């Protein structure tokens, strides 16, 4: 067993960290969030130039063939800096679905994601099925696609959608251009400053040629995407928790009340120790999950489910304590600290919340 990152992985971390510290300060981030739903085309171009958009793709598709460990490294750093760019929606989620397909359309789409010229979102959630992601109503009949997808991440900027639909009772994933007749997008900002949307498909003509995968492969692709996406946002939460406790320690050392730094008060010290411990045990479980997923271990899905449940609890505790220890400053939108709490809340809600994953874990 070896639980150390490779030199290459450490270099990747350094690179992301350096970028965040110099080009993605909290002030910069806030401007992007306020003006443009969390996405800045120039930042995205930088991601492309740095090669980050190619990270998880196979070499034959023009990628670096990196796996879950490298993605987790990137997301941990993104989590610390509250990066709002649609990396999850494009590179991880759409990337995972496209990479699982071997057809030419998937390959072409991947190359455009890598060079940053297109954005793609997976449209799988629906309004009434909660976390039962395979229980879908969107369907295809006589070559026409009908249905409504909701909470589609980054819907505002997606040039096309990977639509999870039923053909009779068989699952299928289509690639549908956002400009196709009958496609309409209704965008909303999300609580954490990104965007999601409802995507409605009304008699949209789709042919064989736009199928990315079908039958068992399609549902497998969705499951694999969910596992990888959950792993990535858990890594992001670990980064966010680390930043939260570090910033809180810093703040309490500087904030004086009763003639002394409030970090002198033992009850606050213990709270910060709890925050630190939650971040560390979460990181431990993240290690196990990413190594299992990397090794294609049969248990990986179960561990990821456990990780997601753990993160739901830990990140909530850490996020709330961070706000509490900042006093009024904690609830002020100007400080970064409350934004971690918001991101944690969204992370828990995405792809099965804690309650869902506790059930899932005990049934797997």
């Amino acid at each position: 067993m070896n639980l150390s990152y490779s030199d290459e992985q450490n270099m990747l971390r350094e690179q992301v960290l350096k970028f965040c510290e110099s080009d993605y300060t909290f002030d910069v981030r806030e401007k992007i969030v306020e003006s443009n739903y969390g996405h800045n085309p120039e930042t995205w171009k930088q991601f492309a130039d740095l090669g980050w958009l190619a990270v998880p793709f196979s070499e034959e598709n023009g990628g670096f063939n990196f796996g879950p460990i490298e993605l987790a490294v990137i997301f941990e750093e993104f989590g610390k800096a509250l990066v709002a760019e649609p990396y999850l929606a494009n590179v991880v989620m759409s990337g995972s679905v496209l990479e699982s397909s071997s057809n030419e359309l998937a390959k072409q789409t991947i190359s455009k994601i890598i060079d940053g010229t297109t954005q793609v979102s997976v449209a799988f959630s629906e309004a009434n099925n909660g976390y039962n992601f395979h229980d879908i109503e969107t369907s295809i009949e006589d070559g026409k696609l009908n249905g409504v997808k909701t909470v589609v991440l980054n819907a505002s900027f997606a040039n096309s959608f990977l639509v999870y639909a039923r053909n009779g009772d068989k699952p299928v994933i289509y690639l549908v251009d956002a400009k196709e007749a009958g496609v309409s997008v209704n965008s909303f900002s999300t609580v954490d400053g990104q965007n999601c949307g409802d995507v409605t498909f009304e008699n949209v003509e789709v042919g064989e040629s736009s199928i990315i995968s079908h039958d068992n492969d399609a549902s497998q692709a969705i499951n694999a995407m969910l596992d990888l996406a959950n792993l990535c946002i858990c890594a992001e939460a670990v980064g966010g928790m680390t930043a939260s406790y570090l910033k809180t320690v810093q703040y309490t050392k500087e904030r004086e009340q009763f003639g002394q730094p409030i970090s002198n008060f033992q009850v606050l010290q213990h709270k910060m120790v709890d925050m630190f411990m939650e971040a560390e045990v979460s990181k431990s479980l993240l290690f196990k999950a990413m190594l299992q997923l990397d090794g294609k271990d049969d248990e990986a899905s179960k561990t990821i489910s456990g990780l997601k449940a753990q993160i739901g609890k830990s990140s909530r505790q850490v996020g709330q304590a961070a706000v509490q220890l900042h006093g009024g400053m904690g609830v002020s939108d100007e400080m970064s600290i409350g934004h971690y709490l918001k991101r944690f809340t969204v992370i828990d809600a995405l792809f099965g919340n804690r309650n869902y994953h506790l059930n899932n874990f005990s049934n797997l």
Partner: protein
Amino acid sequence: MDINFSDADNQFRQEVKDYLENKYPKHVKEKQNNGEQLTKQDMIDYHKSLYEQGWAGYNWPVEYGGTGWSPTQIYIFQEELGYANTPTILPFGLNMVGPVIYTFGNEEQKKKFLPDILEFNTWWCQGYSEPGSGSDLASLKTKAVRDGDHYIVNGSKTWTTLAQNADWIFCLVRTETTQKKQEGISFLLIDMKTEGIEVKPIITIDGDHEVNSVFFTDVKVPAENLIGEEGKGWTYAKFLLAHERFGIAGVPNQKYSLKLLKERTKDFADDDLKKKIADYEIELLALEFTELRTLAALANGGHPGAESSIIKIKGTELQQRLTEMYVEAAGQYILPYEGPEGFNSNNTPASNVSDFSSQAVSRYLNFRKTSIYGGSNEIQKNIIAKAILGV
């Protein structure tokens, strides 16, 4: 001991129900029940309707225009209002500065301020906290220097709730630098229209504008606006804080929200959430009876003291837990969030829980404040440890 209400109490309850049915302004009711934000005018209309009913001073003595109700009646009143999902009665005038004025103010001050407070002609805000003085309130630095028949006030207050709407602010100011920092503090009433006052919004993490910074530059305040004695402000402030903590738990509102949550989750397969709701409800019952026991002690001549800290801590913890369960019940549908005002009615997300979800998020984030303000929960625990446990 008797757990039942008397016939007179039941009759009183009916009166409150009648008010809610017939006099509680319809436009306010509608917005409240749709979860829409209220305007300043809506709040004024609501408070004025209570005044017209003779109930604005629901916890004031009769001699100052209050109802003189017994603690049980106050309890019933608040319970019915909570069940009807009415807006929170703004505490700044009625529960804070009002009682300070009728307890410590002089006759002129009583005449000048109390009727307008009851009638809700003046909107008050609370100027205690400062950037450097939160938990350690007594360290406050905003200075008031006597100059003939005026004070000249300089300094800044922060987190001032709804100062953007306020006509008046009651402030703790430093009139003297003393060895013991509590001793140089005075309690001053300031007209918000006075030259030299500037209000700047602070946006909170739910996106709302509820709190503000208030800056004072050479603000001239008539000396007659000083309450009680110079240097005794801390005593009045402590009196007020004990009152402020009372009722902060919002048990009736929690019961209303609980009912909605149960309706929403009735058909959920999620047993864990149901158990959590039950666990919460049991604690709410315990809190309610803690409050009732305190009220009974009050009726027998006690006054709210450190016990109100228990209610503050437990009440706010439970409120926060309730908001967490709302978020859990909404699942992934919490993501679309356009701010505390909710969705534009012709543009809501395609989920049958979209309004519920949006309010869930808004409240979850907003209610983080409850364990911070009114004396943070850590400070409350310090108080209990000292005052009750004697450690």
